[in-house]
C-alpha cells in the first residue's frame, strides 16, 4: 500500500517534470543515435595513373587486386550528334557492325566463339558524342582479349552480312517505337526541349537507315578512330608499370590524326503550347513541362543541384511530397534543371497520372512552380538537400572503377580532374539566395512547352482549357517506296 502510494506520487512528479519540459522534449531516438555517431574514417580512393602518349592518346590505369579480372574501355570522340541528318542511325549501325563485322583476320562469329568460351566480352557501343569499345575478362585471358580489342580498334572489317542484320534490327526498332508511351514521351520531350532538328533530338527513320552503306562505316572509322581522339581506361588485377610498357608498345607507333572540328549545335526549344500525342490504348497520361537547362560549367551549377534535390529529387522533394504522397496523383513524379558537361541539359518536370486527372496534374505542377515564389524553399529544405548530397558523397568514389569513370569523363570534356572535389565545395557553399535565384531564373511556366502523351477522350478537361493545343503526329514515315499504313 505504502509502496503504491510512493509510486503514485513519483508518477505525479514525473508527469509534472515531463509536462514542464514539453517545449524541449528529448531528441527522438534516431537523432540521439546520429549525435553519438562515430566520424566517417578518412578515405582516399586510389587515383588512376594518367598517361599521355606522344600521339595524343590518354590512358588511365586503375589497379584493383580484389578479384582476378581486368576490364577496359576506350572512349572515342564522335557520336550520333555528328552523323549527317540524312543518315540518322549511322552511329548506331556502325557501333554494332564494328563488333559483329569482325576484323580483317577474324569474322565476328569467330570472335564470339573465341571469347564466349573464355567468359570474356569485347563490345562496342554508340553514344551521342562518342563511341566506345571495351572488354571484360578473367586476368588469365587478358593478353588474348586485349589483342582482339586492339585488332577491332585498328583493323575492323564491317562485313556486309552483319550490316544487313544491323539495318533489319534498326528497322524493327523504328517499327516499334510507338508501342510504349514511356519511350514516346522521352523521345518527343527531347524534340520539344532542343528543337526537332537538333542532333541530340533526331531519330533514325527507315529512309535514313536504308541509306547507310558499308563505305559510310569505313569512312566513319577512318575519320574518328585516331589515338588523339581516344581516352582508354583500364581497371583490374594488373601491375601498372608492366601494363604501361605493353600499352606504349601497342600504341606508340600509331600516328596522330587530324584535329576534329568543334560541332556547332543550335538549341531552340519549342514555343509554349500544349503538345498532344494521342495514344488510344492507355489509361495514364505522361506529362512533361519542358525547357532548356544549362551546363555543369555554369556558376549556378551547384545551386541547381541543391534546388533539384529539394524541389524534384528524392523522397524529401516537394513534387514527391505534394503530388505523390499527399495527393496520390502519381507513381512517377519529379524533375529539375538538367545539366550536361558540354551542352545544355533539359529542364523538365514530369508526372504520370491517370487520364482522368491529366489537367489536374498539369495544374498541380504549375502550382508547385508558383508556390516557389510565395513559399521559397526554406533553409530546412535546402539544408536537407545539401545533407543528402554531401552525406552520400562517398558513393561517388567508393569503387576504383567509379573513380576511373569519373576521371575519364572529366578528361573527355576538358574539365579539371579534381572536379568532384570542387563539386563538394561548391555544394557546401550554396546559400538560400542562390537557390532562390536559380528558381527565379528557370521556373517560368508561361514559357514552357507541355508534352502530354495520353488518351484525350478520357481527360478530366480538354487540354484546350489550358491554352493552345498542337497535335503531334508520331506516325512512322513508311520506308521509301511503300505507302503509309493508314
Amino acid at each position: 500500500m505504502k509502496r503504491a502510494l510512493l509510486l503514485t506520487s513519483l508518477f505525479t512528479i514525473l508527469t509534472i517534470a515531463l509536462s514542464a519540459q514539453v517545449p524541449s522534449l528529448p531528441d527522438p531516438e534516431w537523432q540521439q543515435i546520429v549525435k553519438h555517431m562515430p566520424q566517417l574514417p578518412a578515405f582516399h580512393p586510389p587515383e588512376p595513373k594518367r598517361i599521355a602518349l606522344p600521339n595524343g592518346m590518354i590512358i588511365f590505369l586503375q589497379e584493383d587486386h580484389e578479384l582476378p579480372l581486368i576490364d577496359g574501355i576506350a572512349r572515342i570522340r564522335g557520336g550520333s550528334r555528328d552523323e549527317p541528318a540524312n543518315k540518322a542511325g549511322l552511329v548506331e549501325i556502325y557501333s554494332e557492325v564494328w563488333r559483329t563485322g569482325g576484323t580483317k583476320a577474324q569474322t565476328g562469329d569467330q570472335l564470339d566463339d573465341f571469347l564466349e568460351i573464355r567468359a570474356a566480352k569485347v563490345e562496342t557501343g554508340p553514344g551521342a558524342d562518342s563511341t566506345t569499345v571495351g572488354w571484360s575478362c578473367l586476368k588469365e585471358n587478358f593478353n588474348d582479349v586485349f589483342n582482339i580489342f586492339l585488332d577491332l580498334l585498328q583493323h575492323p572489317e564491317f562485313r556486309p552480312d552483319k550490316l544487313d542484320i544491323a539495318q533489319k534490327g534498326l528497322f524493327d526498332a523504328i517499327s516499334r517505337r510507338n508501342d510504349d508511351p514511356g519511350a514516346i514521351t522521352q523521345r518527343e520531350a527531347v524534340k520539344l526541349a532542343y528543337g526537332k532538328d537538333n542532333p541530340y533530338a533526331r531519330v533514325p527513320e527507315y529512309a535514313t537507315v536504308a541509306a547507310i552503306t558499308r563505305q559510310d562505316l569505313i569512312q566513319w572509322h577512318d575519320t574518328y578512330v585516331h589515338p588523339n581522339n581516344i581516352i582508354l581506361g583500364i581497371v583490374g588485377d594488373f601491375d601498372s608499370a608492366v601494363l604501361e610498357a605493353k600499352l606504349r608498345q601497342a600504341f606508340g607507333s600509331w600516328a596522330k590524326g587530324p584535329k576534329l572540328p568543334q560541332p556547332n549545335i543550335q538549341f531552340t526549344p519549342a514555343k509554349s503550347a500544349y503538345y498532344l500525342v494521342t495514344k488510344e490504348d492507355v489509361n495514364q497520361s505522361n506529362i512533361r513541362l519542358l525547357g532548356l537547362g544549362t551546363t555543369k560549367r555554369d556558376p549556378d551549377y551547384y545551386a541547381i543541384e541543391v534546388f533539384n534535390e529539394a524541389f524534384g529529387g528524392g523522397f524529401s522533394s516537394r513534387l514527391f511530397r505534394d503530388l505523390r504522397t499527399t495527393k496520390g496523383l502519381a507513381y512517377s513524379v519529379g524533375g529539375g534543371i538538367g545539366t550536361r558537361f558540354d551542352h545544355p541539359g533539359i529542364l523538365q518536370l514530369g508526372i504520370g497520372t491517370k487520364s482522368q486527372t491529366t489537367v489536374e496534374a498539369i495544374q498541380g505542377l504549375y502550382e508547385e512552380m508558383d508556390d516557389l515564389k510565395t513559399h521559397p524553399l526554406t533553409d530546412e529544405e535546402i539544408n536537407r538537400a545539401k545533407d543528402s548530397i554531401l552525406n552520400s558523397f562517398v558513393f561517388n568514389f567508393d569503387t576504383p572503377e567509379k573513380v576511373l569513370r569519373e576521371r575519364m569523363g572529366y578528361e573527355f570534356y576538358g574539365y579539371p580532374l579534381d572536379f568532384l572535389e570542387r563539386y563538394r565545395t561548391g555544394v557546401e557553399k550554396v546559400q538560400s539566395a542562390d537557390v532562390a535565384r536559380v528558381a527565379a531564373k528557370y521556373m517560368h511556366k508561361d514559357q514552357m512547352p507541355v508534352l502530354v502523351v495520353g488518351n484525350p477522350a478520357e481527360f478530366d478537361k480538354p487540354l484546350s482549357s489550358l491554352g493552345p493545343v498542337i497535335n503531334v503526329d508520331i506516325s512512322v514515315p513508311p520506308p521509301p517506296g511503300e505507302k503509309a499504313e493508314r
Partner: protein
Amino acid sequence: MKRRILQSLAVAFLLSTLAAAQNLASFEKNTTVKKLPNGLTVVIHERPEAPVFSFFTHVDAGSTQDPLAKTGLAHMFEHMAFKGTDKIGTKDYAKEKLTLEKVEKLYAAYIVERDKRIDRDDKKVAELEKAWKDAVKEADQYVVNNQFGLIVESQGGEGMNAFTNYDETAYHYAFPSNRLELWAYLESERFLHPVMRQFYDERNVVIEERRMRTDSNPIGRLVEQFTTAAFQASQYHRPTIGWISDLNTFSATDAENFFHEYYIPSNMVVAVVGDVKASEAMPVIEKYFGRIPSAPKPDERITDEPPQNSERRVALQQLAQPLYIEGYHRPDYLSKDDAVYDAITDLMSNGRTSRLYRALVRDKQIASIAAGFTGMPGIKYPHLFAFYAVPLPGHTTQEMAEAIHAEIERLKTEDITDQELEMIKTRAKADLIRGLADNTGLAQQLAIYQARYDNWRELFGSVDRIEKVTKADIRRVANQTFVPANRTVGVIETEKPKAAAATQGGAQ
C-alpha cells in the same frame, strides 16, 4: 590426339574447381552468419574496400501470399514500409492512432454499403465515403510527410528502394559505414512499429503504378494475361501488382494483418556487406533486430498446379507490333534439375553464341531478339521456363514458334557439343566472380541464398551444380519439359488503329 585433348580438359576442369573452392574458403573467412534467438538470420560479409556498406532485408513473403480477393497486398505493404513508425513520421502518435482507427471503422462501413449487391443506397454510399475521407483528412494533420525516407536520404542513404515479386519482398540501400547503428535502428523500427498512415493515398499511387507497368504497356498487358493463362490453380496466376478491384477495396487493416502474419523474424534474412566488422556489427544488429517478437512461421503451402494436358493460347489484339512468348511448366528451384534449366538458359540465350540468337537473328533473320529464360513468374513454387522472340517487320509470330521449336527439337535429339558445355560452365564461374565486387549485389545474393537454402554457401554451390550437368541431363530435361501439352503461348497481334473507334480501354 583425342586422348590428349581429353586430358587437358580434365586438367582445366580440376584447376577451375580448385579455384572455385579457394574462392569459397577465402570468402567464408570474411562471412559471418547468425540466427538470432527470435529466428531472424543475419549474414555479414566484411569487404572493407571503402567506408560504406549495403544491406538487403529479405522477407520470405510475396504476392503468392496475398489473401483471397486482396491481390496486391504484399506489394502494398512494401509501399507502407516507407511511411514511418510510431516515432517517425508523426506529430503526435497518440492522437494520430485514434484517428487512424476511426478511418478504418468508417472505411469498413463505406465498403460494406458500396459493395452491397442488393438494396444499395447510393446516397448513403456518398455520405459514408465523405465521412471516411473526412476522417482521412483529420488523420493527415498529424503526419510528417515522408520522414522515414527523408532521414535516410539526408543521412547519406544511397539507392533506397524495395521490391515485391511473387516469392518475396525486399528492402535495400547503402549508407556510409559510420551509420551502421542508425541503419539498424531505422530498419528494425520499420518492422517493429510500422504505421499505416496515408494508406489510401498510397493505394492510389500503387494504382498509378499498375497503370504505368501493366495497363498502358502492351508487353505488360501480354505478360499479365500470359501468366494468368499458364497458371490456373497455383497462386502464381495472380499478378503481384494486384487486380484493380482488389486495389480499390483492401484496407489498412488488411495490410496490418498481412504484416503481422508474414513479417516475423523466422521469415526474415538481413544481409550486410561492406566496411563493417562482424565482431562489432553483430551485437548492434542483434540489439535492434532482436527486439522483433518471434512468431510461428506461417503456412507456405499454395495450391499445386495440376499437370497441363493441352496447349493454351492467349492472343491479344493490340495497337502494337507483334510479339511471341511461350512457357512450359517446370518444378521449383529445389528440383535436382534446377542447374540443368540454368544450363539450358545459358545455352539458348546468352550472347551472340547462343542458339536462339544464331538461329533466329543471325541465320534465319526473322527476329531482332530471341531468348529463353527460367523463373517465370517466380522460382519458389513450380513455375515456367519461357522462350520469347521479337519478329522483324514482315515476319509472323507463327514463324517465331516454328523456329523456337526447331531449336528445342535439337536440344531433345542431339547432344550439345563439348565446347558448348565448357562455355556454360566457365561462364557460370566467371559470373559468380564478377558478382563479388559489388556490395549491393552481393548483399542481395547472400540474403536470397540464405533465405532459399538456409545456407548462403549455396551461392557457390549453384556453380558446383552447373559443373555437374551432363549432355544427357540436358536432353532428358528438354524431353521432359518442352512438350506441346505442357505449353502456354502468348502473342501480341497488331490491330489496325480505327480512326473513329472509341477507346479500346487499356485495362483488361
